[in-house]
């Protein structure tokens, strides 16, 4: 099913040290907080932004308004595009686009890690895991970014460390 799902949000909550909201996947395949909760929040990006508000790390959305807008842009990209990268043809296009984006950047929004990087790491993990060496080499900037991201143990949680073996990538 879609990649911007409940599991992904729970990992983000963990990462931000906030207790996870009671979440469900609605019939229209959009995540939302459960009906019982006081104020219903609907939508993947909206939930993430409200998680940040409740966390100790407000700056992870971006240190200034421009950075915030950039990371919102990539959260939106996650919802519209990466969400459907669970089919091979969509995955291919998403990886191509991200590869272009990351060609001259350390992180999606430049030189600082934001929530957009964190979110994309979780959403893409199952895709990256299945890539062959050839594909990893093909999307080398995504590979570099992802490998950099996954070095942070707090971020990785229980997820597999994916191998980006230099021998294979540059042969």
């Amino acid at each position, binding site marked *: *099913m879609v990649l911007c799902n409940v599991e992904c949000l729970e990992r983000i909550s963990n990462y931000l040290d906030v207790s996870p909201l009671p979440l469900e996947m*609605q*019939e*229209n*395949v959009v995540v939302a907080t459960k009906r019982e909760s006081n*104020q219903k*929040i*609907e*939508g*993947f*990006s*909206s939930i993430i932004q*409200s998680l940040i508000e409740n966390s100790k*790390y407000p*700056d*992870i959305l971006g*240190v200034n*308004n421009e950075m*915030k*807008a*950039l990371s919102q*842009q990539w959260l*939106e*990209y996650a*919802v*519209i*595009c990466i*969400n*459907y*990268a669970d*089919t091979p*043809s*969509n995955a291919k*296009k*998403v990886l191509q*686009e991200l590869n*272009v*984006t990351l*060609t*001259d950047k*350390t992180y999606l929004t430049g*030189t*600082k890690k934001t929530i957009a990087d964190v979110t994309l790491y979780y959403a893409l993990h*199952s895709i990256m895991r299945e890539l*062959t*060496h050839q594909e990893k080499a093909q999307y*080398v*900037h995504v590979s*570099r970014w992802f*490998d*950099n991201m996954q*070095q942070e*143990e*707090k971020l990785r949680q*229980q997820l*597999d460390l994916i*191998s980006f073996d*230099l021998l*294979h990538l*540059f042969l």
Partner: protein
Amino acid sequence: MNISTNENNPNTLKLIVAAKFAQQAVTVKTVQPKASFLGRLPSIEFPSGLILFSTNAAMQLIIPLSEEFKVVNNKWLEWEISQLQPAIALYGSTGIYKTSQKSCLWSLLKELNNALKDKQYLIKGNNDLSLADICIWVTLWSTIMVTEIGNELNKEYLSIKNWLSNIELLTVIQDSIKEYSFERGLKAILSIQAASWFPVNATLNSKPPKSVDLSPTKEKEIEAVSQEEIRNISNNWSSKSYPDVKNFPYPVLPKKGEKNILITSALPYVNNVPHLGNIIGCVLSADIFARYCRQRNYNTLFISGTDEYGTATEAKALEEKTTPQNICNKFFDIHNDVYRWFNIGFDYFGRTTTPEQTEIVQSFFLKIKSEGFILSESVDQLLCESCDRFLADRFVEGTCPRCKYEDARGDQCDGCGHLVNATDLISPRCKVCGNRPIVKKSQQFFLDLPKLENKLKEWSSKVEKGWSSVARVVAKPWLRDGLKPRCITRDLKWGIPVPIKGFENKVFYVWFDAPFGYISITKKYTKEYQQWWKPKDIQVDLYQFMAKDNVPFHAIMFPAYLLAANEGYTLLKHLMATEYLNYEDTKFSKSRGIGVFGTDARDTGIPADVWRFYLAYVRPETQDSNFNWVDLATKNNSELLNNFGNFVNRALVFVEKYFESKIPAIELQEDDLVLLALAQRELSSYIHALEQAKLRDGLKHVLAISKHGNQYMQFQEPWVKIKGIDDKRRAGTIIGICCNLACLLSSLLAPFMPCTARELRSQLGLQTNNYGYIPDDITSILPTGHKIGKPSPLFKKIEEKDVETLRKKYAGKQDTTNSEEHGDVKSLDNAIAELDTKVKELKAKHDKSGWPSKQVQIFVDLKNKLSDLISEKNKSSELKSKNPENFVPEQNGDISMDVASLEAAITKQGNLVRQLKAKEEKSVWQPEVEKLLKLKKQLADLTGTTPAPTDKKSKKKK
């Protein structure tokens, strides 16, 4: 602010409205989508140089959201871009706007209509126009309001209608429309489509409506079953018969005109207990493949054995104060037991310390020599005069020429970790007696590989297509970089003697000796071994399984020997190398007690078949993979228990309960044919995968068949139909098909899980002396009236707490010592110092005289402990420096001039490195990487923070 847009794009209007609202000026430029970033338009450039292609993000930057209504504003903005716009785009290309789905355009409008009831603006309590209002208003007003939907909407959704017309009257809107004029309606929708991408539509469109709700897990798009597939399956079902599996008499020999498959798995070295990675790397992979071949009626011979000669065995014997042969016997039994427990069905599991091996190796050597491929040269070696022997690398110790560490080994220094040449050691000493060895020239034989290079290249270009990709990757550089002569003899005692006068005291090196084990072990199996290895007029396909470290021996050395002998030997055709299996993200280590070893597996209480299943499931086919306890339990519970087990059990219990354990009559209808056609696809893919020994893929196709079966049963609901009188026959058909699929599944699963397959076949009322033929086409296997056996569950649930216990048990000793005994580096330092003194004392006492063997043992133990402690110390200080707990989402703000210039330099150097890495060899970019790292270090020193790691080399231990 500068807006770039394609022609007629209504989203541009949103930006203009926002700018008007904030009283800022904009310019609008028309460009082609191709020329823009990722093909997205409109995009907007801010005075700072920031460019955004997300209209919504840009609007929020122009007009910051008030804190109070942020959550609900966000919700509607997200709704607009992720649901409304895609639905409108879909309408633009298909004309569809009403379906049963929640996400269709008409339902979305209904949702909006409800939200607008009795409100002037979308956001409750906010009496002003909000960003969400602007955004949704522009989208609707510009597109569907001037299509057929507009008329319908004006009649049905009055709240939207009023809201739309109210907003249209606002001055800010009127001004903006004047500033940016475009054609509303379909043309506007097409303009959005041209400059955006909504993959959700592709996903919705291609799914056949029936299967949408049935797939609980992630699944690939299912292509609709074609009429031709239906015709084929229908023909096969009624007319094709199901073949029997052949009974192969001993000995299995190749036959002309048939498929003859010779399978070997790399000979495990005798002095190690194999771990899970070793097991899936060679013997288990080979076994699964061999079982598959037998069930396909290929003439199949599967052999392996232990590799027993060599220095390591000799050293181990010395350590345990026994003979090498005793060591071999002991470990051979361990290996044999482990493989037997895992149900590895060798035709013969032999060893290399046999007279057959000696005879074959010696005669091969003489033959290769007579063909002119053997050179003789003298080499410098260390000779211990008091022991009267040449010292193999691991029998020498001395001071490291590089770091002056006193106890460097002959092959490697534990102090600095560098490789060492035994002859370069400063003041070398014999590990056995402590005396200083002398350098002496010794005459050795070499295989003249350069002379064989062309033959090898010619052969390899013909066969390498059939190799796994890692095999090709490892083998290629050898031939590309040119081969050098290889020394094939050694001055050792434990090995096969060189049958040449003057060389009686030398033996063959393991590189030369071990590969011939395959031939000699086949000879132990049958006297007719030459029919397999030197076939006349018969095609024999040799498949060799191994982990990637063994590739050079099998891709270069062994073929070189056989080609040099020039007697028509069977050469490797399919080289099936795997990558490495890691254990819970680290490496298996016997000495540190990390990981599950062959002997441990049975103690876990998890059946051998489940181990086989999981190891095949994570087989490192295309890249290193990871063994993970939680994953093991999950796969067991979800794939085996809930998917496979559930399907076959439900089918069999149903037959037992409602049809007196007899297979009911089957009358195929369209739904049944569709299921069988889907299963047929998986079966064809299964065979395609296993023919290339892609075992992991094959296993997934097996599970896909039972998944299809489950969905089919769920959809057809035979338990409902059985109660109706007319429908009882229909229920019979459904369940008859399920039982037939269960029967097919028992054969397909058998190579992976032989015991389970046998159990299932007995529940199906089949003979259990074979596992059934693996057919190309699905046919009816169980005839109407066939009596099944007693069904019972095939799998047990693995509880999370149990795997947690197991995970802890095999997590290694160092974890506990680290936290309890040696909590910090300081106490580790003390422990090391203490041990070091002890070791030095011991050495001082026994410097000249030969050491009593008991003391040797103590010394060796102490030293191992010492090196463990040192590595532990390095590790824990490394951890400290990495400081994983210190979570810093943001860097500190104050930046002095120095920091700024350093950062600039880092960015520049980083770009350079990236460019180089994309194009150049490692030797070119490596120095630049070093520079980059140095710069980062400087920055870190200056700011006192750990720099964000951008280069993997600095992070990963190799």
